[in-house]
């Protein structure tokens, strides 16, 4: 059980009006804000829209926090919301230009930033379903049964999607790496 789970459990609000701030919300927000925003970015929410999308997501989280089962890990629960919000967002916003992460603390060394940029752009090239597989499995470390449970899809479908997603991700990285502007310095040939 991580910190957020304990805090949410400790607050144990019995009845919260949907329009009130849940007693466990602020600790959850403090602990998991970065995680949620990171997930949204990886799932294709542009930085320019991150504030709006994360805000709406957290409002929903607050409203549903009483339904959260503290026996479960908090992050898969949060991630399922991120998937839904990112999916809706992607349906509504297409052909927007990619942007960089100015909201991120400026602590990234340039090569690391470039690598992240490459990852995000490669993920961007994937379909939403396959992008979700890379994010959940290869970035967040969920195993296939967990993904199947969270997304409510058959286990074999998860395996299949992961394989296909990796192929697409590989192709996207290869294509993007051919562009010297996008290729991380650490991967450039001198």
């Amino acid at each position: 059980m991580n910190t957020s789970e304990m805090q949410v459990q400790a607050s144990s609000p019995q009845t919260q009006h949907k329009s009130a701030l849940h007693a466990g919300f602020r600790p959850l927000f403090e602990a998991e804000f970065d995680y949620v925003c990171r997930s949204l970015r990886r799932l294709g929410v542009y930085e320019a829209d991150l504030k709006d999308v994360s805000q709406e997501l957290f409002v929903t989280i607050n409203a549903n926090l009483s339904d959260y089962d503290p026996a479960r890990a908090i992050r898969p629960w949060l991630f399922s919301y991120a998937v839904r919000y990112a999916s809706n967002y992607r349906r509504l916003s297409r052909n927007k230009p990619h942007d960089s992460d100015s909201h991120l603390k400026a602590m990234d060394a340039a090569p690391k930033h470039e690598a992240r940029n490459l990852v995000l752009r490669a993920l961007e090239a994937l379909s939403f379903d396959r992008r979700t597989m890379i994010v959940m499995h290869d970035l967040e470390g969920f195993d296939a049964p967990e993904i199947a449970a969270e997304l409510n899809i058959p286990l074999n479908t998860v395996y299949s999607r992961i394989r296909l997603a990796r192929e697409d991700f590989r192709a996207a990285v290869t294509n993007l790496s051919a562009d010297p502007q996008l290729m991380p310095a650490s991967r450039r040939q001198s």
Partner: protein
Amino acid sequence: MSDESLEPLADDLRALLEIEKADYAFSPAFKAEVLGHVELAVGLSGTTAAAAGTAVATVSVGLKTAAAIGFAGLLLGGGIGASAVAITTRTVPQAVIVPHESAAVRDPAAVIAATASAISAQELAPALIPGTTQVATTAIATATTVATVQFRDLSKEREILDVARAALGRGRPNDAITAAQEHAQKWPRGYLVEEREVVLIQALAAAGRKPEAERKATQFRKFFPKSMLLPAVSAATAP
């Protein structure tokens, strides 16, 4: 976690993803801004929303003292609007404070006053001209005064819209229309224009004046294409 039926990820891709996997943080200002908006949306979305008035204030104090206040309305669940308040100067901001402990704050004017007071002249002075603490103090005081006056107007705006909402809630759409129109006359470019228009659209629709409601709804979508009130507008004008 491993899935044995899957082949291991290629080393180069794994290395690339490892960089992305490392935790990274978003700026505290961004985080505070989102939290403030969430608190606003939550605090003002319920039935007691009109009286709540919770606010997050982003105060930027500059050399010039003419402050402008921006107000954005939000709405959730077809309820009542939420508000975000920002004070900006017309010059380059010299200091930014984003308080988000809104639980104890119910008066926007008090928020601004408290926030502005919290900016010490010493904090501002280095950003202005060395030794000009007097200038900074004056700037803060004036900004606070302007903000307080502006928020008095905001309270009046809200009062009229509360009348409109209450009338709508009691099934008296014509009274709601009258109140909304009064608001429009007094504050054609007020802080609560977005909320007023939604109430008016709802009231027109409830009064059976569908064509007018549709026309207003079209205008609303044009002027506020990203409004969180759009679902309420659509619901009001649905066939």
